[in-house]
């Protein structure tokens, strides 16, 4: 499998925030969940890939092409869905589609019509009268009907209700049956990813925490719960972070096998969810 997206030592500084030496790859045909708390640099990274902002240093390669040098060619093959609606609100769905269509060489109207029907989008409604979920579906329909090989989604589920989110995930699940399409999906709602992601890339405060397969993460990370007398300088070192209460502690470890050996029989060891991993990593020791 080749990489469809490669970020290498990517750096972008703002006054109060720095995206620092970010490196990760996305393989063709896979779905990557891009997670991190608000303000961790997810949107900055996506804007860098889309050449909406300029990198300070580092390299971005999409489809093996250097960005932003081959920006135009790259964008022909990217579908994008953003967290907000940036379409012209005064237009209806078909008018907006007619504006966007001529820019893509591989536009397929049959596919567009199929999605409009499937998503039950009202063609004649002005975009400003669509619900947030419908706007998102419309973005998705646009992103999917020009034969894009990479779909970039920046917080597509933010502000959507659980029913709608689950519907979106089903749609994405169907899309990724096509081995040629890859998805980069940024979100802070990690449960969205447990169903569809192959890889998880986690960033915090502009720095990469990890970029691994989801299975590897789920298999190795664990929550250890026990009484506080088990904690000493040695055992503390085993954990990413520890939450201590008056009753005991809950801590996150990266190595479930080692934790089982150390705390054998004395602790409850259970698998950590992506949310646990994010929360414990971001928060540090409490």
């Amino acid at each position, binding site marked *: 499998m080749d990489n469809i997206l490669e970020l290498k030592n990517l750096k972008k500084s703002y006054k109060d925030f720095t995206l620092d030496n970010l490196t990760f790859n996305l393989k063709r045909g896979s779905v990557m969940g891009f997670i991190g708390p608000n303000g961790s640099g997810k949107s900055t990274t996506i804007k860098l890939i889309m050449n909406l902002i300029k990198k300070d240093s580092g390299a971005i390669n999409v489809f093996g092409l250097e960005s932003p040098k081959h920006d135009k060619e790259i*964008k022909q093959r990217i579908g994008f869905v953003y967290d907000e609606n940036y379409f012209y609100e005064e237009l209806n769905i078909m008018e907006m589609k*007619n504006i966007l269509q001529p*820019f893509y060489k591989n536009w397929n109207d049959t596919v567009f019509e199929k999605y409009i029907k499937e998503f039950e989008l009202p063609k004649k409604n002005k975009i400003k009268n669509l619900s947030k979920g419908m706007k998102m579906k419309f973005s998705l329909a646009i992103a999917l009907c020009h034969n894009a090989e990479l779909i970039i989604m920046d917080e597509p589920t933010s502000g959507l209700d659980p029913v709608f989110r689950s519907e979106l995930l089903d749609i994405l699940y169907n899309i990724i049956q096509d081995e040629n399409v890859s998805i980069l999906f940024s979100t802070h709602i990690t449960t969205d990813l447990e169903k569809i992601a192959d890889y998880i890339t986690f960033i915090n405060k502009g720095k990469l925490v990890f970029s691994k397969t989801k299975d590897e993460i789920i298999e190795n990370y664990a929550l250890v719960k026990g009484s506080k007398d088990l904690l000493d300088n040695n055992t503390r070192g085993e954990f990413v972070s520890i939450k201590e209460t008056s009753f005991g502690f809950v801590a996150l470890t990266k190595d479930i096998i080692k934790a089982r050996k150390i705390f054998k029989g004395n602790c409850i060891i259970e698998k950590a969810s992506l949310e646990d991993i994010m929360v414990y990593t971001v928060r540090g020791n409490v």
Partner: protein
Amino acid sequence: MLIFNLIVKDILIQKKTLLYSLIYAIFASAFFSSLGPNGFGLYMLSPMAITYMFITLAVSYDDKNKSDIIINSLPLKRSEIVISKYISIFPFAILGFVYSILIGFIGKAIGLPMFTRPISVFNIVFVLTSVCIFSSIFFPVYFKIGNLRMKFFNVILLMLIILLPSSAIDYATKNPNNIFFQKISYFISNTSSFTQYSLALIIGLIFFLISLMISIRIYNNKEF
């Protein structure tokens, strides 16, 4: 081709302006007919104002919907986006002319007193030159600071475009001995109108091209 699509986009997002500007042209022909020389309201002020309306409304729709983000996510070069904005002023101006010509024609046919003549080459040259100079100042500022922050600047710019020529003419008639104006009047009386028109258009276009290069530079460095 992509530039053409962007211009079509700028018209499609403001289809209502097509109607508003027609109404404006009708009123301008009626109310401003006494303002300047014969046909000034209909053949000069109206196409200029219509072009201005289309330019500023197109960018205000872009800004309101933050559409730069979508436009810049499409397979387009930033320079193409800027060039399309500059070229769009010509279809806008042509539309203004078409409206004026139509109204002038219909007005004359039904025999209204203020419609005495068709549009002249002078009218067209004057409008095109002013519109070129207006956009040359407007667009770099727009690309730098965005439409929302330039409301005040727009008012000043519009006043300048309208007041500057008339006060210059005013000053010239009151000070007939000023060397600069003497030279201009000597030039005007001793050259063909074709030369004068060409010169005006060339000056307008030079402004326009320099401004275009500045805007491309500004937009290339913009972050969204």
